[in-house]
């Protein structure tokens, strides 16, 4: 066995492996957080090994069948856009994003030779089988251990986020909001999951009077908001000021309560300690997340974390936010 393979074998013995091959897994923010949580669980079950994250993003290969719009033309931008999400996993030894098939094969060969702990399992990886949104292993882990490894703020964005807080939020309380509006983007997928912009606008306009010291930080893609939201005095849009996903996730993971549609950012909140109310949870996902439609919480949710399965209206959002605001307030006071 040559020295190179010996080094790979040594690495594989020390670390648990997370494999995300975008040839069969989607480029998706929410699925990234679910995957990272599954990887952490796998590492924990194998003696709390440090984690090697290996992402495979080959330019010559089209993305998964339901993302036909991701090609070699725009793949770099998609990957760069997602990168901060992969920095939210604690206990990570390395994050490696491969565009070379031979090099990543060498890394996986090391894992084969040592039967390394990995998520997905090596067998599933070779079968190209991964249910990226499934909570089955997560729920099973929680049922047995009564706790869940959580994600954290991505490394590297703390100072800039602090600057954002001091310059734009000031003494107000930040609430991270995300309104799914894929119909406004170039990749309008699963539009039935989009929220009603009118309902959210109505809520935010009223919230200015009712919760005057709340600053609603509207996060997500630059194209995913209508211009009228930028005119609301209680709404701040970080991407209008040169900030991005890393800063938005830092705000969320540092404890700014999350209020928004079931989508990518809600998955970040799901695996955080942050108070949240997730709206318009898709009924079709109930089986995937192992919950009956209408359940108020994930099995592993904390006391200030809720789900809502109804279509949003201004008054429903006000009611949901009232509860979140009180819980977040108690949380801030250490209650």
């Amino acid at each position, binding site marked *: 066995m040559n020295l190179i393979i010996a080094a790979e074998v040594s*690495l594989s013995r020390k670390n648990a492996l997370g494999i995300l091959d975008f040839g069969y897994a989607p480029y998706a923010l929410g699925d990234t957080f679910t995957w990272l949580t599954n990887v952490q669980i796998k590492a924990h079950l194998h003696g709390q090994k440090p984690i090697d994250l290996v992402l495979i993003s080959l*330019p010559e290969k089209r993305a998964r069948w339901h993302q036909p719009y991701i090609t070699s033309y725009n793949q770099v931008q998609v990957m760069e856009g997602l990168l901060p999400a992969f920095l939210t996993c604690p206990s990570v030894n*390395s994050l490696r*994003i491969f*565009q070379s098939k031979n090099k990543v094969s060498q890394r996986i060969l090391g894992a084969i030779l040592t039967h390394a702990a990995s998520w997905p399992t090596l067998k599933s990886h070779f079968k190209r089988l991964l249910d990226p949104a499934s909570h089955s292993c997560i729920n099973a882990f929680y049922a047995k251990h009564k706790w869940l490894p959580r994600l954290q703020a991505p490394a590297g964005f703390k100072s800039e986020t602090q600057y954002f807080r001091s310059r734009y939020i000031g003494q107000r309380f930040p609430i991270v909001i995300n309104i799914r509006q894929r119909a406004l983007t170039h990749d309008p997928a699963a539009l039935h999951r989009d929220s009603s912009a009118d309902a959210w606008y109505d809520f935010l306009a009223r919230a200015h009077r009712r919760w005057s010291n709340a600053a609603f930080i509207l996060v997500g893609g630059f194209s995913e908001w209508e211009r009228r939201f930028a005119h609301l005095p209680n709404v701040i849009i970080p991407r209008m000021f040169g900030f991005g996903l890393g800063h938005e996730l830092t705000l969320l993971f540092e404890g700014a309560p999350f209020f928004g549609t079931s989508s990518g950012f809600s998955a970040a909140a799901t695996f955080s300690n942050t108070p949240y109310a997730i709206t318009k949870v898709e009924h079709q996902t109930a089986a995937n997340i192992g919950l009956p439609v209408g359940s108020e919480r994930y099995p592993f949710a904390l006391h200030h974390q809720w789900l809502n399965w109804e279509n949003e209206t201004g008054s429903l959002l006000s009611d949901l936010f009232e509860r979140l605001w009180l819980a977040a307030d108690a949380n801030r006071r250490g209650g």
Partner: protein
Amino acid sequence: MAKATVVRISNLKLIDQYILSYARLPFHFLETSVRGYWNALLVHQRGAPPNTLMLAKVVSREPGDPERFLAQLAVAMAKNPNCKEIDLLLVGHDDFPVTVYSAIARMFGRRLNFQLFWSAQALSDVAKALTASSVLISEDIHKSSRDAVALTSATVGTLLPPPLSKNIAREYLKTINPSSYFCAISFRYDVPTSESISALTQAVECYPDWHFVMLNDASYFDSEELPVKVHLPSRAGFDVLTRLCIAAEVDAFIGVDDIYGLITSISGKPAHLLTGVGSSSGVSLALSNVHCSAGLPHNDLPQYVNRALSKLRQESPVDRIFA
């Protein structure tokens, strides 16, 4: 109808899960094993992966660190113009975004194997599996990250920006004014806002053919204060990668030698760079299209911008545009 579609999709899923996936299993297992072994063999025999530029870097909060990285990469690409892949090995920093380094590396258009570690030791461990010739140890990595670097004319033309970002950058400028000329501007963060605005106002008045774009985040500005022909791409939702592409697309650059100034410089466009000021990168430039000033003459920013634009008019390849 919807129910029928759901049933059809779930049937396809079952077929895939219980039949097709078992067909894929041996193929991908074999392919991975053969490719992995072949790669290891090549590295073992040649000492390094073929056609690959390997660069190790410790990310630092020191001023000028991204600029030094950009310059190191440009120099390395100039020396290895036929390389097909970049193996970038970064030791991350808790308080500086690695996304900046990733975006810089993407500007060279090669396959990028981006590898991020949280300690120099972790990098060293992995490096043993990447190269047989010289295993990087932590002290070497720290030292090479701080080495002085010089950009020469050989680095001009090494950029190959990603197609989508490049197109977005060009279209952004076209939507402002398709027939105008664009000068990118980067000021130091500690320059008083009033002085910056005065310099920009004067530039807009004296050079009506030009628009000005501020590529750094310029968060110290309220956009309402700026003259009408001064634009802030960071306020239009553009990430660092797209802003780097805008720097490659503009017609000229005036300001500090930040990553945007260096990108314009190695794109072969005329640039006037302030290299000797507090936040300077320490990258030295020996490029015929770049004028460097060690400091701000007479500490007068408006005058400096005016003189730089005037020199561009007299000397640069964009001379014709002032005619």
